């Protein structure tokens, strides 16, 4: 327990320090608007990818419909804050987006989570496309052209805090009783069921938490970019979130952080290459996957506890 408190405090210090580091860098001028934009995009991708990693990496359910839930969060924020241009409006919109997204996740998840593997992937992809097509045809969502001039109520500190909150919630869930249940479902459904675990309920819970975090990310996306359209949330968006998860290592939360950062930086650097950008990006993706098939970190986590243990053994001999 003591070790837990120690690591928790250190993580808290790291979070606060990270915040002040970025803050001073912005004040000093090292981080300009361009880089700030990159950081916010990385933050949003981290929220999306940790949520998806919970569903794919920990619950073992292959979902390809993450962008659909992101769309719900985005549109809820866009519609509500357009008529309520206050920070309170943003948080109300955030909560409404999360609730709507959870309802959608229940509607999608209850029937489809009975499917397995690639069938589940294709069913969730279909569900996300249905969400997108409905948004594309409604009046309130601005149809195919989307919504413009959304008030900017989410600056980078909001994104930073949200990244921290969603990560803490997901990591705590993974380490709770629920998390162990979810991981047992991933390892062997039949064995888990034999141990008295209601596999369907835990799958659904992981799926719903993933959808809720996607809605948070969508909300920040809408508020920060101020323009959204249905095509921002197509299959390619779901796939790009999946790329972050797999590149970081399926089942590694810190890996997701690393991958989101790496991809964000690569993307920003490649902006200078114009049309060649996507060609280089795709070659980099193929090479990374061929030479590092388990992702950047695999299932390995950067963990403070392990560092402490390592230190305590000391003598420099111990090497697990």
């Amino acid at each position, binding site marked *: 327990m003591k070790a837990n408190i120690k690591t928790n405090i250190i993580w808290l210090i790291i979070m606060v320090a990270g915040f002040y580091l970025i803050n001073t860098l912005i004040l000093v001028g090292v981080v300009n608007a361009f880089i700030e934009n990159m950081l916010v995009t990385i933050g949003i991708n981290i929220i999306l990818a940790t949520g998806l990693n919970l569903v*794919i990496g920990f619950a073992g359910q*292959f979902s390809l419909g993450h962008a659909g839930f992101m769309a719900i969060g985005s549109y809820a924020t866009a519609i509500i804050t357009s008529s309520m241009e206050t920070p309170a409006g943003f948080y109300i919109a955030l909560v409404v987006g999360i609730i709507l997204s959870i309802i959608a996740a229940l509607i999608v998840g209850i*029937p*489809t989570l*009975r*499917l*397995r593997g*690639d*069938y589940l*992937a*294709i*069913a969730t*992809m*279909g*569900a996300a*496309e*249905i969400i997108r*097509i*409905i948004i*594309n*045809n409604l009046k309130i969502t601005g149809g195919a052209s989307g919504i413009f001039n959304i008030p900017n109520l989410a600056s980078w500190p909001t994104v930073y805090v949200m990244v921290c909150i969603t990560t803490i919630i997901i990591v705590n869930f993974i380490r709770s009783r629920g998390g162990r249940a979810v991981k047992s479902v991933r390892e062997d459904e*039949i064995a888990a069921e034999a141990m008295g675990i209601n596999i369907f309920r835990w799958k659904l819970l992981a799926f719903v938490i993933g959808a809720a975090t996607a809605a948070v990310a969508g909300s920040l996306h809408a508020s920060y970019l101020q323009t959204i359209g249905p095509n921002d949330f197509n*299959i390619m968006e779901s*796939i790009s979130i*999946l*790329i972050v998860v*797999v*590149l970081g290592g*399926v089942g590694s939360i810190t890996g997701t952080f690393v991958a989101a950062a790496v991809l964000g930086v690569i993307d920003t650097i490649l902006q200078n290459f114009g*049309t*060649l950008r*996507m*060609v280089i*990006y*795709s*070659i980099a*993706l*193929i090479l990374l*996957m*061929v030479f590092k*098939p*388990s*992702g950047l970190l695999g299932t390995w986590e950067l963990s403070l506890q392990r560092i402490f243990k390592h230190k305590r053994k000391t003598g420099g001999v111990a090497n697990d």
Partner: protein
Amino acid sequence: MQIFFQQVINGLSLGSIYALLALGYTMVYGIIKLINFAHGDIYMLGAFWGYYVINSWHFNFIEALLSAMVVGAVSGVVIEYFAYRPLRHSPRITALITAIGVSFLLENGMSYLFSSNTRSFPQIIQQHNYNIGGVLISNIQILILVTACVLMVLLQLIIKKTKMGKAMRAVSVDSDAAELVGINTNVTISFTFALGSSLAGAAGVLIGLYYNSIDPLMGMTPGIKAFVAAVLGGIGSVPGASVGGFLIGILETLFQSIGLSAYKDAVVYGVLIIILLILPAGLFGKNKKEKV
């Protein structure tokens, strides 16, 4: 009733394109359990090859079709060799991301090299419409249907009657056991890619004739639709892929004709989800029993 039959005819011609693509998906999935996202882009390569040889080398339809099939087959084998073979024993999701990477590479590479403009496909066959009891059928539609059916029958013959087909079926059931009885799995998998990709190349030329316009991103949507068709028919099942393709083509055109064209994709996905809920392994898929 006339309108209905008209839409069924249109749906069948569109569906035969989806079916040709879906066959490639289903064969590759059956043998190495990989969703080959780059398959739709091989279809795009086939269409561009057809465009090039008809314009520059003045090929006729048959020559263009056959050469596009060869180009499709070669590119499929090359992609398999460089991108998928090193990942044969890694997690399936990794191979999936690689396939997506290859798809991005083909789309953006073609856009970069030959610009992303839409081109009009040369009309080598003069279009005639035949009126059969009020239903209009063009010779191009007949050609697409006949070509697709001939190719599907050929494929079925290759899979069922040749030694290579037997090897393909063996590898898809159990690749380790197949290796033990002396089947060269690598050659068999390459052959599967060649077969599937040649069908995609043919589909590319056919769609060029049918829709008259091609561009480097044309493979994305039909690729996903064809994959949906393959899943609908039961992925891994060859007749399932053909039936799924025709079904999706007909559904799409029917909903377009009753004025729901904005929702036609939603309907396709809705039908997919409902069918999967009733038959979790698709229409023709084998439902595996759970074993402890």
